[in-house]
């Protein structure tokens, strides 16, 4: 015991400062990403009774036009598929997803779109996505849900129709 003080080597002290700084920068960039670019994980929002889904929006899953380029997309997951079985939206649509599971835990992952949920029975996963590109992607279940897990996926089709034009039609009642 040389002296009553923790010995920290000079280089080790520098390493500690650098490590802390790097981790600090990483965390700051995360917060910036959340605030500036709105990249957020799902927040805990609403719950439903999985035995009484008939009394909720999940009684009639599907795409709903809410005016403008706004869409509500209600999806119910169950072993082993989603209802509805495909999603079609016009390019430019800003869609709010409301997704839950009827039976066991499923996943909800849109290829190349950073939409990524666990679907827990009793909880509604919600997020808002703007679709700027025409094309077809897959919505996949990415949480193991039994024998048919691998067949649980459906297409998401972004069509080349003007979301705003559809919206104008909707307002004049001529859609």
């Amino acid at each position, binding site marked *: 015991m040389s002296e009553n003080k923790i010995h920290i080597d000079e280089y080790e002290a520098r390493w500690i400062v650098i490590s802390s700084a790097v981790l600090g920068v990483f965390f700051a960039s995360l917060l910036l990403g959340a605030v500036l670019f709105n990249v957020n994980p799902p927040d805990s929002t609403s719950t439903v009774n999985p035995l009484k889904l008939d009394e909720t929006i999940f009684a009639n899953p599907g795409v709903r036009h809410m005016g403008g380029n706004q869409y509500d997309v209600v999806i119910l997951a169950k072993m082993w598929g989603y209802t509805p079985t495909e999603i079609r939206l016009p390019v430019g649509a800003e869609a709010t997803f409301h997704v839950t599971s009827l039976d066991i835990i499923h996943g909800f*992952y849109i290829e190349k779109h950073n939409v990524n949920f666990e679907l827990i029975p009793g909880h509604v996963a919600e997020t808002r996505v703007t679709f700027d590109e025409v094309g077809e992607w897959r919505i996949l279940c990415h949480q193991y849900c039994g024998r048919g897990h691998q067949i649980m996926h459906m297409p998401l089709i972004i069509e080349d129709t003007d979301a705003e034009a559809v919206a104008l039609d909707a307002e004049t009642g001529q859609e």
Partner: protein
Amino acid sequence: MAIAKPTTEQPVENRPILSYPAAELLSHERFQVGAHLLVAFFALALGIIMGPFQTFRRSPWLQTVSEDLIGQPITTPIFTYYYQALTLHGVLNALVFTTFFIMGISYFVVQRSLQRPLKSTVLLWISFWLMTVGLVLTAWAIVTGQANVLFTFYPPMLAHWAFYAGLVLVIVGTWIGAYNVFRTYLGWRDDNPGERVPLATYGILANFVMWFTASLGVAVEVLTMLLPMSLGMVDTTDPQLARVLFWFFGHPLVYFWLIPAYISWYTMLPKQLGVPLFSDTMARIAFAMIAIFSIPIGVHHLFADPGVSETAKIYHSALTYVVAFPSLLTAFNVAATIERSGRKRGATNLIDWTWKQPWGNPVVAAQFCGMFLFIFGGISGIMNASFNMNQALHNTTWVVGHFHTTLAGAVFLTYISILFWIMPMIRQRKLWRPRWATAHVYTWFFGMLMFAGFMGRGGMAGATRRTDMGAPGAYFSPEIAMWMNWTALSGMILLVSSFLLYAVIFGTLFASEEKATVNAPIQKDTPNEFIPAFLENWRLWAFIIITTNVVMWLPVLINSIDLVNGFWSLGYPGAAR
């Protein structure tokens, strides 16, 4: 104290200590450690073989070749149902192999570094048999196809009750083992007032403190939710609450595997390289930080859960960065120690110490390779822990790539390094064909590096984990197909590597004839540097651990308990059949 065969040849200073012989194991040590390792490597044999065949099964190219050649798709061996094989792979490798190995090695390290026998041999065997009976119950449920729930067993999917009962027995067994180790330490403490406990034992103690705290979460989940439900005593459950309880346990679980590897890097590797550790105190600080910060960060496994608030996700993300810090301390400390070894072997400039090392020695090379893989494990781990980057990566094969560089990389290779010196001591025969052992280390290293890289790229391209991609109807994009084909190549390398490992094990057990001359690389004394007393103040640790976890987990727990709509999810035993 009753001891099997004590030798009193080297009394250190004035302490009446019974020193253990360096090159030979006492008969009770051979039985104790040997029994644990035997079960561990028996379980690993079945678990490990499932891995490569899963990569073959997921490769579209290999599936076409297989259809052409034998007229049917490739399946996993013996257990042809993919999810059953996947459950075996996860439970046997990650839960059973690790737990038995850690318990056996912990007993060995504590007895050797404290130079006193365990408090109770009876408790040791009670712990061992509880764990073994637990393993048999769990394995029976999986093997008979009644527990295809993977190693995370999230409800409402349900397994046979024997699966959960077995897991409870394994965990209770580890608690008894931990109690035994702690009593042994307290006995040493009484006999050595004012001394600092050897670093190796310090690490084991920190590991058990963390493990006991963490396993309370899964114990509550299994005993109050899963077991009653699988026995038909209750009909409904709350799956979000179950996930919260599971991941209270799940993240410290990975540190439970990692700390023994760190103990090897900090206390055994310096002996094997013939140099002193760079800083004993900083190693203790790293262990203490891991014990504290590995638990209040588990929400980073729940970033994609709709029942956990974003605030909790941000807090846990921040603390996850804090737990990366002791690993960065370890990186410096161990690298500085390795540099000393290089200098001792004639290195003179900035980088030549990296190759002036005993790279041909399987015991050392395995640890070096493990460390190298862990660099990727650490970086990818920090990426996963970033709550918004996780949006792109969660539950893709990226995550599988990540934990194969940590668990199947750093942890596995370091355990194998330990096996390569402890098995000759137990068997009292030299390691059979050390070159094969070295070949195993390098094939495993390159195979795992490739596997992790390809799985990571596959995940970025959108490949989902835990999916039987070889079954009809599974989704593939061309990009995913390409990366999955590449992982099959790494699977072939890893298959060869596994055979090499078991050839060395069986060779050493049955074919090796030369007498072993290995010394146990256990540090018995503490170096001459100042180590603050608070590092061994376990009351202080308990207080900090309880406080941080109440602050970090209680809001998550309350948030996930939904008294109106919670607890209404029906159980689905059929889903897992």
